[in-house]
Each structure stands twice: as structure tokens, then as C-alpha cells.
């Protein structure tokens, strides 16, 4: 069964995010729990200007357009699960 993904994860591929931990996020697809597997689309996007060294928000990710800063695989999954559980209510 093919469902259209409900959640769009956009990973910043700008150099700053990429070297500050963003590279790891490109393995997200392998870490997704079964509950989320068919519901998520993942894509890389260019720098969107959040990468100031003083603010330290990198690596940055957008989930359905909302910013998630200092993203890690676990943080992304947690956020997706929260969204998904709310949607299931």
C-alpha cells in the first residue's frame, strides 16, 4: 500500500550544518521506527541562513516547515513521534 507521506523532513545540507553534525542526519531513514516508515519524506535543502557560529543552532532541520535546531537523529524521531501520536488521537 502506498500512502502519501504526512511528514516532510528537510535536512539542511549547507556546509556549516553538514560539518556540525548534519552529516549524520542523512542516515535518518535507517533509524526511523516502523510506525513512521511510510509516513515520512526526507530531503536535503540548501542553507537557509540559520548557521551563525554565535547562536549555535546548527545542524538545522525543518519538519513540516517548522524549524528544529541542534537537530539529532533522536530529536527528529521524537518530534515525529509526538506529531504522529497527536494525529492518531
Amino acid at each position: 500500500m502506498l500512502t502519501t507521506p504526512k511528514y516532510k523532513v528537510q535536512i539542511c545540507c549547507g556546509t556549516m550544518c553538514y560539518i556540525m553534525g548534519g552529516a549524520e542526519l542523512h542516515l535518518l531513514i535507517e533509524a526511523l521506527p516502523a510506525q513512521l516508515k511510510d509516513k515520512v519524506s526526507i530531503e536535503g535543502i540548501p542553507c537557509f541562513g540559520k548557521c551563525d557560529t554565535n547562536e549555535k543552532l546548527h545542524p538545522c532541520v525543518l519538519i513540516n516547515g517548522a524549524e528544529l535546531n541542534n537537530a539529532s537523529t533522536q530529536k527528529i524521531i521524537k518530534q515525529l513521534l509526538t506529531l504522529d501520536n497527536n494525529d492518531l488521537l
Partner: protein
Amino acid sequence: MTYYNNAVITKRELLVRLIKLLNNDTLLDEIDRIPLQMRPRTNSPIRCCVHKDRAVLKYKIMALLGFNIADEEDELTPLREYAEQALKGYTQNGNFLTVVDEACSSCVQVNYTVSNLCQGCEGRPCQVNCPKDAIMVINGKANIDHQKCVNCGICQKACPFHAIAYLPVPCEESCPVKAIRKNADGIEEINFDKCIHCGKCMTACPFGAISEKSQILNLFYNIKHQKEKTVAMVAPAILSQFKASAKQILSSIESIGFDAVIEVAEGANMTTDHETSELLERLEEGAPFMTTSCCPSYVQFSEKHAPELKPFISHTPSPMAYTAQLAKERYPEHKAVFIGPCLAKRSEAYQHPNIDYVITTEELGALFAALKIDLETVSPNAGISDNVRPESRGYAASGGVTNAIRSVLSAGLQISTELIDGIDKKSIRLLKALPAKKQHTTAFYEVMACDGGCINGPVNVSPLKVSQTKLKNAIREIEPAEALNE
């Protein structure tokens, strides 16, 4: 081997900040502020207090400026002074690691510790069996006397409650050749008579206490102020490390300000041809086997730990060495800069008269980030030669050298090969046994100090799986037609 942790990120952040300041011509004025900016009073400290955190950063910067921490004469010397010297040029001594002693010493002296699972039982098998009489029971709980303990681990095995835990010292545990040990002050020290510059301790230390002595600031200063002409020699592994096509990565490197760019894969073309004929000659003359010579950490390993292997290592120059030769022919006036994923290449280059700088994937990434070069938007410069075979880019992953050699062997010729993927305690035993072995079933050994090959080098930025995919793409980027016409 790239572990994602905060210590790694701190190093990269320092690099980005330093390069940014240098690019804005404010390095000397602001370098001493970096520790304060990165560890403001308002944040909760990582170590005991904010001052300790800042001191650690100061020493990490000192290493990135190319200095040996142990050479510090006066604790009050500001970073500015070190930076001034660094911009003028470094005096390297052939050892490329330094232990940031402020950051280290956080690890245990004794590897065994009694946890609160201890029941203070009547049997006390830990105490009874300890050969050094190092265990005392105080207030119903066993205690290990650090002066007496010899780390034998008998107590741990003896305890029926599993109350005794093993605490590793990450750097010591990771070193395949026992080159790093505590000195009398409890600080780790690297013995360079043993060290093979594999970089494993550096990636293993969760405090980021082991640092490379970098050349990046001196190089970038000279590029920015056009003090000298430079040619970048880009290792194939670099093409697997950033989110962009190989052409874009090469063009982005040029846009930093290098006057020319050569792929080290061009040198690899030559290594393949030469090494293949050498292998065939040697086998003809009755040699039982031959190993590769392109991994400098492996070569150092044989020099320092297994001299009996030396005669079996190929004499063919590495792709980096051949590329340096090409660079000299094409650009005799230029300084040659090797860009790669490898710590050991720093020492190979140090011994090579025609290579002037080595910078790493991490440092290159920091340059891109600090200069805001977004690789995906860079339009590829067609002028960069891609006179390379797909197999030569393939050198970057384990099995690549073997594959390249097979590709030029005349059809029908069978050579048995074996891959030694990563230098660790197990493969060291195997390697050391090779020269004395009576029966040889393998004629050609490819030895890589990093498991996975250079794409898994210690100073890379992409995780291995991502690098593998990206390297395949980079190999595919070479049009088969071009490859045939070379």
C-alpha cells in the same frame, strides 16, 4: 571512524571561528576572546567551572595553531603571540599529535571500580582473590586501593553480584600499538617511537584531549594574502565527504583561492600501473607475496613494529607522492597542498620534499563554512582536469587498490588477493605472522589502517555509510568514454 560527539563539534567550531577571524583580518585582535565567547559565564560549565572550560579551549586553539602543548613555557602567553608565530610559518618536528593536558586526566587511573551494587557479602571473594591485597571493605562496601591495584580484573570476575565495573580509558583502549600511556602525573602521553599516526586515540577521546597540530591558518593566510602560489592535491576520499558532486567539490576547493587543483586520483593511475608491474616482477622472481604501500599508517607500522614485513611492501610511490611529482612538473613554482582524510599523511608529507602543507577534510569543511561557500550552488569549473580512471577514485575505499590493479591485469591472469581492512590487534597478529609463513595462498595483500579505507579516515566529516554512497557517485561521474580515451 567519525564519531559524532560534542568534542568533535567543538574542534570544528574552533576551526570555523579561527578562519573567520583570519578572513576578516581580525585574528590577532580577537583570538584571545574565542574561549570567552564560546564559554560565556551564563552557560553551565562542562567541566568543574567556566575557567577550566576556557583554559581547555585555549590549549585546543594552541594545537590548532600548530603548537605542541607540552612546549608551553609561560602559561600567561596570550594566544595572539602564538597566532603571530603561526602565521609566519610552522616549525614541525614530524610528530603530529599533541595531548591537551588541561582536557585530559579526567579518566580513571585504575580501570576497576566498585559500584553501589556491592552487598558487602560475607564471602568477600573480591578481597580474598585479589593478588595484590588491594581491596578493603569499609562501611560494608568494598573499596579498591588505587596504589595497589594492577588492573588484573580478578575481583570483577569473582563478584557474584557483578558489582565491580570495568571503566575503560578510551584512548589507550583504541590504540592498536600501545603507544599512548599515562605519565607520572596521570596525563596521557604519546610515545612517538611507537605511534603510527592512525588517529584512533584522537577520535576515541570523548574530551577531545588529543589534537592534531594543524597548518590551516598559515596556509589560509598565505592564500588570502597571495604570498605564494598554491596547488591543491585532492585525495579521492574528499569527493565522498560533502553534499555535492565531485566536480562541484573540486571547483569549490579552487574557489577558496588555490591557483590550481589536481586530483590525487591522477597519481593513483600511476600507482596502479607501477604497482601492477612490480607485483608481477616480484612474483616472477619467486617472492611469496607483496603488500600495498599507499597507506602511510601501515608503512609506519611496519617500520616501527614489524621490520620483517618491510621487504614485502611494495616500493611503488603512493598516489600522493606521484601527484606531488605531477604538481612539480606542471607548476614548479607552486606550493603543494595535500587535502585528505588522513592524519598519517601529515607525516608522510613531512618526509616528502615536494609537499608543503597537509590539510584535512575537517579543516576543508571549516574553510567552506567560514567562507560561506555552499558547494551545491557552485558551478563546476570545466577547466579542472579529470584525467582519472574511475578505479583511481576507487582507491578511497577498502578493496579499491586491488580493484584498480585487477582492472589493468591482462585478461586471464589470476592473482589471489586479500584485504586487511583496518589495523587492530587482530590484524596485527596476522600481519606479523606473514613473513615467516611457510605456505602462501595469497599473492597480494591490500592493507588499510582504517577499516573501510580512507573514506573512514579519522578526520572526515561524513559517516561511513554516507561516504560509501557518495564515493560510488563520484566514481560514476567519470564518463566511461573519457576514461577510455585517457
